[in-house]
């Protein structure tokens, strides 16, 4: 099986050679992808899904309370 190297076997130059530019921690800290905007339809979809999740969680909570109370 291939062996992994030791940390002292690799210097900074080698790190830069082996990793893609945007794999470096410093690159990820300094470069951020821009914010994208949503169309009204996508906004409505996201809000609809949010309402769906909240409603279903309330339903589950009611169901659990009902079941526990009925024990």
């Amino acid at each position, binding site marked *: 099986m291939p062996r992994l190297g030791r940390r002292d076997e690799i210097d900074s130059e080698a790190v830069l050679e082996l990793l893609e530019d945007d794999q470096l921690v*410093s690159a990820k800290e300094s470069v951020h992808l821009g914010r994208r905007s949503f169309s009204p339809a996508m906004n409505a979809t996201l809000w609809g899904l949010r309402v769906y999740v909240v409603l*279903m969680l309330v339903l589950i909570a009611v169901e659990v309370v009902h079941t526990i109370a009925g024990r």
Partner: protein
Amino acid sequence: MDEAKRDPEVQGSPPSAPRITHEDRDRALDRLAVARARRAGSLRGLRVFWLLLGPGILVFLGENDAPSMLSYAATGARFGIGFFLPFVLLTFLMGFVVQEMTMRLGAVTHRGHAELIFDRFGPFWGWFAMGDLLLGNFLTLVTEFIGIRAGLGFFGVPPLVSVAGSVVVVLVVATTGRYWTWERATLTLAAFNALFVPAALLSHPHWGAIGHAFLSFGPLPGGLSGSMLLLLMADIGATVTPWMLFFQQSSVVDKGLTPRDIGSGRLDNLIGTLLAAGFGIATIIATSSLYRHGVTADALKAAQFAQALIPFVGHIGATLFALGIFEAGMVAVITISTSSAYAFGEVLHTGHSLNRPPREAWPFYAILLSSSVFAALLVLIPNAPLEYIVLIVNVIAVLAMPPALVFLLLLVNDPVVMGEHRNGIWANLFGGGIAVFLIAVGIFYGITTVFPRLIGS
């Protein structure tokens, strides 16, 4: 860039020298091993795959967790071999489609899921996604400790010892300061998920009935009912959940996978899918012996499955089953708490890598450990309604999945994020179809909860 050319043994220095961290150095070592393996002679493909496998197998075996295996156990005990065998296989195929997109997203962007959501969609939607993740993760962690306590309880281990011991295991595995060590240790633990296979074989399954089930999606004793619907949702929640997205994407990034590794990543996911599906189906087959012998399984809880199985699979089979439940919980505690820590680290812009030593990324390790500790403490509270948490945790996962899937689909279709690696039409059709299916199942569950007389009890 060609990795062979980036091997320091082959090529010289780069033009500039940005800050290099401990994390970068460890990740580069992993990539060096991959580059060397790619240049090796015979068995090259196997060597490369051995180095690149991990996140896919781990995410699927991690999702074969205590509540999932208990859902499968309840399924087999209540419905026997029939509709649910091919259904579980289908749910895993859904899982494969979703996790393939996740793996690709991580390999292309080198950024975690939470980080991408916050970057592209802003903190408003980002915190909603985090809320779903953290609620689901915490409840799931509680159920993992229930599984650990139940599995070891079969052997007479006191709850405090089993729960505290598991937290220590999480601490030891997580703080090695090296992603590679963490991954291989967790994979080794996850291999014990296979214990459900000999347990199934010891139940002397009827192979003809298994073959018939896969070909006919039947029988389904009792037809559509409330309890059947709950188990159906739980079995779906046992294969597609939000934590899997956050975990796999972050671990792909931590492992250092690149677009060149996408093929190996797919194979990793496929193997994970098939292994997890096989072990889940084995669990259903093992407990179907209870159904065959008319044992009422409705009131069975975690450890009681192993106990109830003794007359049908013997002490060895029951022991394997109990150990499997313990393993399922243990591996999931490690992976789920790690997914919470990754997500928090990405959002708070603190160190979030298993390649960082604890002194460099203490908030990351503090979240990883504290999420386990709080869940463990809840399990130790006397008379806590733990059985309800087990029942609903997979259901909550199904309900929280559609918004997570929509974010995933938006990201993998985003040309700014994915470039040439963005989704094709088939991936979108399958991904969109899965989202619609999950919403429909959730709404159906909601309607039958409000109007239970619409279907049987």
